[in-house]
């Protein structure tokens, strides 16, 4: 065992990268669920974002356009879900699952000519002096811009939900859509916008994997992160900061366990491999022992005539 082989600074820096796609997708889904909609299509929207972002970044050689395309791609796919559940009043669970299957298939089709291509690199943040600081520099000031977007988005979502009128409406729609409707709020419009936001976030998270974290296009490359994001929202009791904590715990322990394995720590590998899931769930379950609960109208279909 040689723990000195692990460089804590590099470890923290890479756990932040590992957590970001999960954080982005989970924050998007949190807003969707706060509006009372359960969209199980996160995985599908992520993989569509991954290929849309990758394709546009390669074609235009501009990674930022790629990220915008990824958000658009995820949002367009989520629009399909919005149509099915908000207009056609289809079952949300079934529609969400269908969205994932559809997204996986469609992305494989779209990505056929992009296998084995290298995307344009995204510049990392480089602030003179700050980035060169020891320890703090690589951890706080040496990342790609999307990572900071993820953090800013978490803060913005929290503030918006807690302090703004818009957040109040969104929560009202999610808690009791009949009451919100009676008060004159547009339930369906609010939900469609929330779904679009969720799609854009998931798409961005997917593109983060294909453009920054891996970076390449491979079929099925999100490999279940969308599902973990879904679980994370529930275990985080629909609270943005807990989602952030959960994402960093999960990403962090995943990176840590790989590092511990490489360093030859004498903990059986099986325990290390399951630790990210176990510890993240444990911590969040303990934290959610307070009275937090799911939005009351979560997953229920709304029609103004009812």
């Amino acid at each position: 065992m040689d723990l000195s082989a692990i460089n804590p600074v590099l470890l923290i820096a890479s756990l932040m990268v590992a957590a970001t796609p999960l954080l982005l997708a989970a924050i998007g889904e949190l807003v969707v669920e706060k509006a009372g909609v359960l969209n199980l299509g996160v995985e599908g929207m992520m993989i569509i974002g991954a290929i849309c972002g990758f394709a546009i970044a390669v074609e235009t050689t501009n990674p930022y356009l790629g990220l915008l395309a990824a958000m658009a791609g995820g949002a367009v796919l989520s629009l399909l879900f919005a149509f099915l559940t908000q207009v056609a009043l289809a079952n949300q669970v079934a529609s969400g699952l269908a969205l994932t299957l559809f997204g996986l298939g469609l992305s494989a089709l779209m990505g056929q000519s992009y296998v084995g291509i290298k995307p344009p690199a995204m510049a990392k943040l480089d602030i003179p002096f700050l980035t060169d600081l020891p320890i703090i520099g690589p951890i706080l000031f040496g990342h790609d811009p999307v990572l900071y977007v993820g953090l800013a988005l978490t803060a913005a979502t929290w503030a918006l939900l807690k302090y703004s009128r818009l957040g109040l409406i969104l929560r009202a729609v999610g808690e009791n859509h009949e009451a919100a409707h009676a008060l004159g709020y547009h339930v369906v419009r609010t939900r469609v916008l929330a779904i679009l936001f969720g799609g854009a976030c998931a798409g961005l998270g997917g593109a983060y994997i294909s453009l920054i974290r891996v970076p390449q296009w491979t079929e099925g490359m999100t490999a279940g992160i969308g599902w973990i994001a879904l679980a994370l929202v529930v275990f985080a009791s629909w609270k943005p900061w807990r989602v952030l904590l959960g994402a960093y715990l999960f990403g962090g322990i995943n990176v840590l366990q790989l590092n511990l394995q490489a360093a030859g720590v004498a903990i059986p590998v099986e325990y290390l491999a399951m630790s990210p899931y176990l510890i993240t769930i444990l911590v969040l379950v303990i934290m959610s022992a307070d009275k937090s609960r799911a939005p009351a109208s979560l997953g229920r279909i709304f029609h103004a005539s009812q």
Partner: protein
Amino acid sequence: MKLTKLLASAALVAGLATTAMAEKTKVGFVYVGPVGDGGWTYEHDQGRKAVVAEFGDDVETVYVENVPEGPDAERVMTQMALEGADLIFTTSFGYMDQTINVAKKFPKVKFEHATGYKTADNVSVYSARFYEGRAVQGHIAGKMTESNIIGYIASFPIPEVIRGINSAYIHAKKVNPDVEFKIIWAYTWFDPAKEADAAKALIEQGADVILQHTDSTAPQAAAQAAGNVVTFGQASDMSEYAPFPRVSSIIDDWAPYYIARTKAVMDGTWSTANTWDGIGAGMVGIGEISDRVPADVKAEAMAMVESLASGDYHAFTGPLKKQDGSDWLAEGETADDGTLAGMNFYVEGIVGDVPN
């Protein structure tokens, strides 16, 4: 009268249709990953395409991708058998028990299970001696590493993977006594993000050669980003990362085997077999060794490929000890296939335990 006529002609048409169908041999493939993974599943699908190219209209192939190694695999195989498949290739180790179970229910359907060891009257197993390729990789890795740390991304602790680690280690150690292996078990065959993280963790801990036994090209991309790290293509050539970081590769070539077995089913000569071919038979290919490998190392590696192919040299030749220091192979003795097929121990010098 009219009705009977109608029924009779319907029956006739149906009969004709069945005969027309029966002339076609239907071959099913169960894949563990997507056909576009650029690695393991990609090569199996190349084999499937070769079968189509060889037999044309006489054969019909079906495949299902991303089939999890569990009960779902049994459902997929059953579905294929019910749809009239004559021959089904199940292409991952984790389908072993499922293949045997489904084969019991469909005695007339032939099954071929890759990398497993359980056979039955209608179940054959086939695998390639990838460890021969690992020996070549180990040699190149041992010669090229400057930090003397070689990172190994392993998938699941099954004999197939353990053989690869041992073979690579033995040959790296032979040319570089100071070499050290850092092994990460990813517990997945295919998860690009996790594979990339594993590669980054190994690189951060000083590895300058990465060997992978997972299926995606993500570790190659991570090595490329890091700059001075050597990799090898796994299952497929991964030549898009040549000449550097990918300096060589192990290529699985299933096409000749798939064609031969399909032909056997067509001719009615199929029988249970246990095929384990290596470089010599062409099932394991060594991808072009790039110019970034020093010329003398390349020549040695090529010579090793030659001797492995001809059978003059066995990748597990004594003297070798097990990790616990007990004797395994005496001087000049070579490992028997039984031990290799069930290998569950590291050889002497590797640090860490094999997970259960």
